[in-house]
């Protein structure tokens, strides 16, 4: 196995029990709030509930930092093994040896810093955003539980433990999307997210089974699901035969990728993510933008040694990623809901990351995970701040001109928008450009993938600035709207000053925004290109556990620097053009937006507005198909299965009746007949017993005389010779 020749020689992990505290603290917080949160909130107020939630995640973050510095202190070889906290043996059956163990290596340490760091900020933000909600404690219990599940996913040292976290975040996502379960649409969105994820999970589980089974066979009974051991054994799969005409590595990695498309919202399973915006905005920021949706990418990076063996899967990954990026970006240009735009933007950016994974640029993909976490969390929290100020109005057409009223929100939102649009030198530029470069230069990539990526970069810049202009610039449409606002049905936000001008959010919300915006500016340092100082920090950091395939690294190395810089300029120009177009249409209004929506009789616009009719397509095929199938099965159940069951019951009943009759008439008849006969015989006999002694004596004497007579007469005859 040449591509990762030294992969097998990972150091043994060093025992560090404190690592277990990182996931267990949020779990403790979740349990405490889940069991005692309601009483705590009634007696001590929401402050203490929020403090517990923020503190547990905050301490987890500090411990993550501590673990990070422990890793920094190790040499590169030892870092590959990292730290481990082996809590308990979990499943020890035959050669399946899985422990409840949390392992921190460079990859997971990068992820937990993002999860706990951004998680803590969003917790803080949510204490203000959710302050009005009566179920405050329940919200934070779920939020803490989510952090625990996510950390289990990241820190679990085996695929099985990762799957536990995988399902855990799915559950928390479901609970939090449907947090405002009083509205039917929210619960529907929650169920949709859960069910669509289950489809992906199916692939994931199959992948786990196939991997264990094939490793078991290939190593002669030493199968394993622990990452570091799988890594050492993976070479044995090289000649381990095929499944459905694919090599085992291809098949297993493809199954795992199906799981990733569910969790990370890729074609064909992305439809749940936009609907997931039904949840409270901090949830959208934490789960559906910054952390949970990156789980699929984390898993691919974690299993990169497997994916590197399967170029066919990598091709599928890159094509799906690019297609998703393009599809979601086009939809995002036509959406009017502030959160829907961000949701499709997230899907699109995740597509970028999959594109990176697919061309073998795992490091670039993970870099984009991290930078995207900063600016997307900032954007979502910023949109939450806007929604908060607009009394839960999410339609951008009813906003406008907010930049003077929400200065901090505006500034941070703008910074993040510039970052996601890919303008140098903000974070998004570096990570996105690394991806585009790898998509062009990698042997698994190509000009087509690069072109799609550049188009998406232009679209991203365009729709993000459209959003900024519609929300923060132009006419304040909410003023005209305000007249009817006080009297209409959904005036629930009016308690704190309707008609009043929107006001900036409290510090709990603005401070996280500022920190995240700073991250959006500076996050790029982790992935500077190789001609800059401090180049490729993250890639170098991940190197012990995540290696770019050899063929990829070699080919990229031999590309001329001028080409790389040229492509970078092209992508910058395209992004600038996107911004310019948005400015023309939505800020300067030189071109009315209708010009585009009326293009080709408005048909393209309608297609985009209706999200390419993918939901309708799924509804017509999968959903209706499933429902039709359930009806057929229900009919089958009612007619055939019930028929068999009822028929069997009837037969048994008839047999029972017959046996009853036999018992009644034959067996009982025999018993009763015997009793009756005995009784009648006794009644007849008792008449002999008169009780008169004389009568007895007469009988006795007659009997004796009769006996004597018989003896003498017949006995004498018999004795006569």
């Amino acid at each position, binding site marked *: 196995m040449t591509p990762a020749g030294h992969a097998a020689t990972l150091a043994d992990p060093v025992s560090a029990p404190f690592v277990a505290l990182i996931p267990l603290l949020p779990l403790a917080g979740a349990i405490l709030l889940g069991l005692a949160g309601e009483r705590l909130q009634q007696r001590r107020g929401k402050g203490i509930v929020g403090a517990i939630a923020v503190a547990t995640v905050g301490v987890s973050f500090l411990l993550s930092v501590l673990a990070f510095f422990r890793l920094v202190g190790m040499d590169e070889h030892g870092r590959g093994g990292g730290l481990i906290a082996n809590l308990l043996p979990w499943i020890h059956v035959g050669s399946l040896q899985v422990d409840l163990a949390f392992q921190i290596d460079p990859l997971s340490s990068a992820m937990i810093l993002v999860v706990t760091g951004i998680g803590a900020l969003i917790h803080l933000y949510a204490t203000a955003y959710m302050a009005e909600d009566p179920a405050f404690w329940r919200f934070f219990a779920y939020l803490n539980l989510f952090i625990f599940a996510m950390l289990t996913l990241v820190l679990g040292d085996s695929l099985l433990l990762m799957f536990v976290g995988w399902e855990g975040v799915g559950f928390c996502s479901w609970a939090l999307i449907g947090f405002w379960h009083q509205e039917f649409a929210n619960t529907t969105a929650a169920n949709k997210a859960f069910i669509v994820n289950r489809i992906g999970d199916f692939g994931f589980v199959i992948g786990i089974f196939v991997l264990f089974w094939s490793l078991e066979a290939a190593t002669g009974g030493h199968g394993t699901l622990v990452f570091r051991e799988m890594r050492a054994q993976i070479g044995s799969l090289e000649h381990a035969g095929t499944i459905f005409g694919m090599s085992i590595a291809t098949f297993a990695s493809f199954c795992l990728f199906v799981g990733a498309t569910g969790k990370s919202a890729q074609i064909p399973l992305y439809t749940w993510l936009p609907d997931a915006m039904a949840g409270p905005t901090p949830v959208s920021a934490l789960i559906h933008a910054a952390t949970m949706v990156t789980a699929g990418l984390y898993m691919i990076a974690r299993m990169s040694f497997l994916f590197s063996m399967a170029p066919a899967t990598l091709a599928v990954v890159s094509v799906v990623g690019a297609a998703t990026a393009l599809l979601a970006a086009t939809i995002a240009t036509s959406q009017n809901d502030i959160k829907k735009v961000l949701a499709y933007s997230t899907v699109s950016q995740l597509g970028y990351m999959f594109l990176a994974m697919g061309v073998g640029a795992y490091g670039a993909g993970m870099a984009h995970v991290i930078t995207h976490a900063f600016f997307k969390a900032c954007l979502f929290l910023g949109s939450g701040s806007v929604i908060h100020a607009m009394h839960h109005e999410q339609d951008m057409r009813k906003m406008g001109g907010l930049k003077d009223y929400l200065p901090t929100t505006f500034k941070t939102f703008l910074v993040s928008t510039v970052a996601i649009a890919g303008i140098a030198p903000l974070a998004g530029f570096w990570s996105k450009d690394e991806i585009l470069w790898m998509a062009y230069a990698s042997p698994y990539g190509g000009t087509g993938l690069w072109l799609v990526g550049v188009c998406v970069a232009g679209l991203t810049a365009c729709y993000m600035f459209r959003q900024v202009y519609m929300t923060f610039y132009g006419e304040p449409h909410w003023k005209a709207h305000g007249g009817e606002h006080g009297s209409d049905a959904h005036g629930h936000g009016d308690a704190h000053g309707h008609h009043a001008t929107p006001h900036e959010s409290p510090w709990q919300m603005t401070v996280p925004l500022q920190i995240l915006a700073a991250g959006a500016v500076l996050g790029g340092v982790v992935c500077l290109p190789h001609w800059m100082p401090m180049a490729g920090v993250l890639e170098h950091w991940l190197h012990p556990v995540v290696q770019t395939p050899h063929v990829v690294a070699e080919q990229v190395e031999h590309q001329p620097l001028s080409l790389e810089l040229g492509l970078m300029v092209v992508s910058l120009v395209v992004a600038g053009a996107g911004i310019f177009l948005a400015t023309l249409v939505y800020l300067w209004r030189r071109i009315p937006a209708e010009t585009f929506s009326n293009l080709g009789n408005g048909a393209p616009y309608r297609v985009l507005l209706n999200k390419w009719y993918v939901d309708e397509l799924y509804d017509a095929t999968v959903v209706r198909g499933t429902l039709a199938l359930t009806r057929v099965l229900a009919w089958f159940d009612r007619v055939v299965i019930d028929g068999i069951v009822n028929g069997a019951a009837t037969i048994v009943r008839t047999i029972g009746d017959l046996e009853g009759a036999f018992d009644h008439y034959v067996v009982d008849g025999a018993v009763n007949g015997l009793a009756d006969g005995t009784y009648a015989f006794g009644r007849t006999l008792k008449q002999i017993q*008169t009780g008169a002694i004389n009568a007895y004596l007469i009988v006795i004497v007659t009997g004796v005389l009769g006996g004597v007579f018989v003896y003498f007469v017949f006995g004498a005859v018999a004795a006569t010779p």
Partner: protein
Amino acid sequence: MEGVSVNHFVVLSILLFAAGLFCVITRRNALGILMGIELILNSANINYVAFARYSGSGYDGQIFAIFVIMLAAAEAAIGLAIVLGIYQTFETIDVDATDRLRG
């Protein structure tokens, strides 16, 4: 005593037995029945003594007769006690009236 043979004693004993039996069967008075039983026992005693005397086999028969007399005494005592018990219960010793064991 030359003309008297064992047959005479047997006939006597048969007559005595028949008289006793007749008495036992026909009497309705319990005491009468006991008396009849005495006659029957004594007819058996006559047989014992007579056959012992005429077969010349020592005094076995006489000894048996004495046993039977003894037994008759015991039987009389017990029988009388039963009759007393019957009288205390039924205030009569008519055996036709004491048919409580009738089936």
